[in-house]
């Protein structure tokens, strides 16, 4: 049954599925990062998701925002690296923007992604087009914002599709941030590993909400 509003408990279940999906995708993320970085993204994300599972499984939630804040804090304190800082910031800031909500609907989805993305850009200095996770997040946020009047299923479907398209679009971009920037034009043809992770996360959320 497709879901129209998620309770905090359902939100927690969804984010545990996200954690499992990322752990399963470790080889894909490792390969994506090897093409442009030093190949540690997959292992780092796996470590972060194990910490996320430990934290979420041990917690009960009344606020949906708190699920995402814990998700971010577990990533930030366990991972380190650029990924830990930016993904931690994404979920901590995104979750904070909906910490007073007891249900997760289209408006919460939009707030989560747009507030989180803004904080990621402030922390890391990346803008759309720099070939980073922002290139999946920014279009996803735009899609979520224009779908707040729709059902959660439709909003999440549009958001995930925009994130995936953003990941694909990052293939054609030239890296200007982080370790990949010294590759210059050689970075063309590979998606950004952070954008790959974002797309997997959004797709897993969509699969949970539409199933």
């Amino acid at each position, binding site marked *: 049954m497709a879901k129209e509003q998620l309770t905090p408990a359902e939100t927690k279940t969804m984010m545990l599925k996200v954690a499992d999906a990322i752990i399963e995708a470790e080889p894909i993320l*490792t390969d994506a990062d*090897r093409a442009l970085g*030093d*190949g*540690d993204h*997959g*292992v*780092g994300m796996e*470590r972060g998701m194990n910490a996320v599972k430990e934290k979420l499984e041990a917690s009960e939630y009344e606020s949906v925002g708190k699920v995402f804040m814990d998700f971010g804090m577990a990533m*930030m*304190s*366990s*991972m*380190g*690296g*650029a*990924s*830990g*800082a*930016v993904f931690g910031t994404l979920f901590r800031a995104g979750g904070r923007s909906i910490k007073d909500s007891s249900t997760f609907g289209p408006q919460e989805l939009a707030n989560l992604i747009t507030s989180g993305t803004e904080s990621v850009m402030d*922390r*890391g200095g990346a803008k759309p087009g720099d070939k980073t996770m922002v290139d999946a997040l920014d279009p996803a946020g735009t899609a979520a914002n224009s779908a707040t009047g729709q059902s959660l299923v439709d909003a999440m479907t549009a958001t995930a599709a925009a994130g995936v398209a953003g990941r694909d679009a990052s293939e054609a971009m030239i890296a200007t*941030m*982080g*370790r990949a920037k*010294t*590759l210059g034009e*050689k970075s063309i043809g590979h998606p950004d590993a952070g954008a790959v992770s974002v797309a997997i996360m959004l797709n897993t959320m969509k699969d949970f909400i539409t199933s």
Partner: protein
Amino acid sequence: MSDLKKLINDPLKVADELVEGLVDAYNGDCIHVGQRSLALRNIPDGKVALLVGGGSGHEPIYHGLVGKNLADGAACGDIFAAPPPGIVLEATQAVDKGKGVLYLYGNYAGDVMNFDIGAELAEDEDIDVRTVLICDDVASAPPTEKQSRRGVAGLVPIVKLVGAASQSASSLDELETAAKKACLMTRSIGVSMSPGSIPATGKPTFDIAEDKIGLGMGIHGEPGVGEIPMTTTDELVPQMLDYIFKDFDADEDVDALSEGDEIILFVNSLGATTMMELLIALRKAKQIFTERGIKIYDVIVGPLVTCQEMAGMSFSITKLDDELKEYWNMSCQSVCYTKLEGHQGA
């Protein structure tokens, strides 16, 4: 490529276990702090503290540079990953003796973000923090954008100099100024022949053809200025040093390296390249500096900034003035680097 025969336990606990072993190697001079940091056992009250750190897997740096007249502590990340903010905070609290803490580490996006968040947490605890980034890799950006360069092997002479400066610095301002000078005067260039591997996956960190050398490659195998055909030491060394000479020439913030100058020369192996190979490269470098009338004040040679079994080497040059020479002449002692008072050389 088949996986390497690496002698470890749980691949995900490599960093934790190596830091435990490092503290054991200090045999009482250092203490283990919090989740994954170490600090000198006896830091005098009122000392301006020096904290280094970064991803693990490059041993003996960074954490091996905690020591007498060197760094007071290190915040250690997982393998090739910056330490999380909580670890940075724990290390900061351990070394702070009331006069503030200077963060000195290599310029990587992950390190900058995590140390910055750590500094914000430390400031919430009323600890004064400043940051000086090590950006010594001349292959990673032109002199006009040198603040965006990667931090590579030059960190060894830099931490040596700043650690000495920290013994007498009366304020965080003063130490920051000394650190900026040590960084400005230190430039590095590296090459790589084959990759290292990530312990948790066994996968190589990058790919390079058998018959190629990556010129200007970073310490994780980040691409440099380009690939050149495999060659001999005597062909390669002049090309490498040329990047450093040209960089000092082109940078308006420093004088060109010229006759009569005195330098520290650090010849580093990235792991698999042997002492034999380093010494052959050192021999050629010495000839080149002698021809130019540049005096080598002291030499460091060995595998100190590594990336597992990565084959490759780098040169780091620190141009000295009277102030830096005074810092250099102090003795120092750590797992990574130990020297007696004074310098080697007539």
